[in-house]
């Protein structure tokens, strides 16, 4: 607190302003602001010193992004079309991996023998970079929708399987016991006990798969596609337009952050409405950790 001067409001106000300013500068927000300013200044100042002609200034990137947003572009697709294609593929890929991964994960979680059967392959899937799928699949399928979608599905699949199988192990044992003693049919048990307890895990996996899957999708579009955001990045790369590559990267980051913060947050609140508090227990752990999770 800044001590208030009793003699005059003017000096008191001045001290308060200085105090607030000082606090702001030394606070975390001050750090954030300082970073943004320093980064922009550093970028602006170092580029002219470099030998290469390739590096753009911040203004070039901003101008490019603005032009793209107004659909004033040299490229065959506008930024809206490019990201719409990419999003569509991403959704298909996620849908496929949930469709395959959910039953697989349930089986893996249910039985140790099934787990032993699939485990090594899931590790291998997790470990291989998307690039490999992108290369192989685009050799196989050419420039169709198949390679990008399958890449997303393969990248996301192991996360779904692992999370769902964790979820199965996490099914409330007491509820299962109760169901057994009351002879609840298997189907009802699955519908009312197992699936609801799966939701947080599945949700986390999808959210997580989204963040990863679309990085993989970008690579797949670079190698095995002729449309979409990844292909646009390649297009500008081959035209040696660094400002455009950086501009697209920024679009990408912005969209990812917005989707993560807004879309998934809303969805998560909606899916877990039935819970007394989303902040509690496994669901919070499962859902509140996205790409930019603190």
């Amino acid at each position, binding site marked *: 607190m800044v001590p208030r001067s009793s003699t005059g409001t003017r000096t008191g106000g001045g001290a308060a302003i200085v105090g607030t300013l000082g606090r702001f500068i030394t606070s975390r927000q*001050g750090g954030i602001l300082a970073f943004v300013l320093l980064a922009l200044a550093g970028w602006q100042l170092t580029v002219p010193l470099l030998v290469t002609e390739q590096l753009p200034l911040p203004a070039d990137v901003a101008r490019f992004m603005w032009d793209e947003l107004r659909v004033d572009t040299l490229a065959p697709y506008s930024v809206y079309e490019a990201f719409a294609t990419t999003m569509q593929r991403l959704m298909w890929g996620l849908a496929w991996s949930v469709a395959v991964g959910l039953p697989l994960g349930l089986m893996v979680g249910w039985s140790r023998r099934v787990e032993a059967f699939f485990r090594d392959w899931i590790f291998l899937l997790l470990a291989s970079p998307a690039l490999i799928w992108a290369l192989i699949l685009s050799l196989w399928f050419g420039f169709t929708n198949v390679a990008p979608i399958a890449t997303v599905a393969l990248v996301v699949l192991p996360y779904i399987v692992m999370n769902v199988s964790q979820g199965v192990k996490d099914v409330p044992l007491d509820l299962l016991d109760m169901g057994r003693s009351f002879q609840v049919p298997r189907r009802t048990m699955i519908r009312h006990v197992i699936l609801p307890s799966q939701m947080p895990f599945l949700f986390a996996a999808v959210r997580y798969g989204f963040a990863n899957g679309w990085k993989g999708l970008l690579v797949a579009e670079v190698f095995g596609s002729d449309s979409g955001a990844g292909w646009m990045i390649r297009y500008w790369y081959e035209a040696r337009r660094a400002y455009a590559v*950086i501009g697209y990267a920024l679009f990408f980051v912005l969209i990812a952050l917005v989707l993560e913060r807004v879309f998934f947050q809303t969805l998560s609140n909606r899916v877990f409405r039935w819970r007394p508090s989303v902040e509690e227990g496994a669901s919070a752990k499962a859902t509140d950790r996205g790409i930019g999770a603190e």
Partner: protein
Amino acid sequence: MPPPTLSRPDPHYGINADVHPTGPSGLVRKDRVEAIENQTSNEETRTVGVEHNFARSTYWVERVSSLLFFLAIWQGISTFFLEDFILPPPLEVGREIVSIVETGELWEHALFSYQRLFIAFALTLVMGSAIGLAMGMSRWLDGFFRDASVIMFTTPSLIFVLVAGLIFGISYVGPIVAIVVASFSYVSFNLWEGVRSVPKDLMDMGQVYKMRRVARIRHIVMPAVAPYGFQGARFGFAMTWKVALLAEVFGGNSGLGYKMGVAYQSFDVTSLLAWVLSFVLSALFFERLLLQQLENRSLRWRPDVGGG
């Protein structure tokens, strides 16, 4: 505060899970944790994150039969449904691997790739830990570096590779820069978490008993940060080799990734699969065996890791 064990949820879920390919140590530690849990018949917290607790399996029959099963599927599809140039049978890929080993091509390119990879990894560790420690120690620096780090790992590594390619052309340095920029944040976030986990009460006690600064760092700070540091190193390495691969495919003139790019451009699936398998398997070997051994060795003192 108890030492961080992996039976609690992975604090990096969503941050590191990206590069959490095998989680080898997770496997080992989880087993031991699970063994202890079983002894006390205390079935409680399970991890949601990718730090899975698949039990260490003794189901060798299933594992071997699974390997045979998938190889048989591969062989079957290749013989009955697709042409060999689309999907070569497993034996042919094996023969190709043997041939690149015999001609010495594999060693030549692997040496080149790994040399650069380890230089980049060392730089990643240095930069990542410096930033991570700085973030852990001051709120201002935390604010300063945080958004940068978040942006770094939201941005696909492809972008760094391409921009580095535009700036440096086909060079030795370009990929190194791309790798370091793309992967340092994985190390720094882990160290940041590690610094926050340093037990405050022990630090206070050290102060009260007038421990020297060096001794405090050696005996209180380092043991608390070490597990996070190793985790960061492992995640960092996983990221590093993936970016290195990408960089070599795009802008290399030598190295394993370059050979993959060549195979891709000449539509040679056999050779592509051979190079892919040899790189992925060797990278997994480094990640699993070397880094994990190192980690287990340094964390021996922890009951749930070394003591058993």
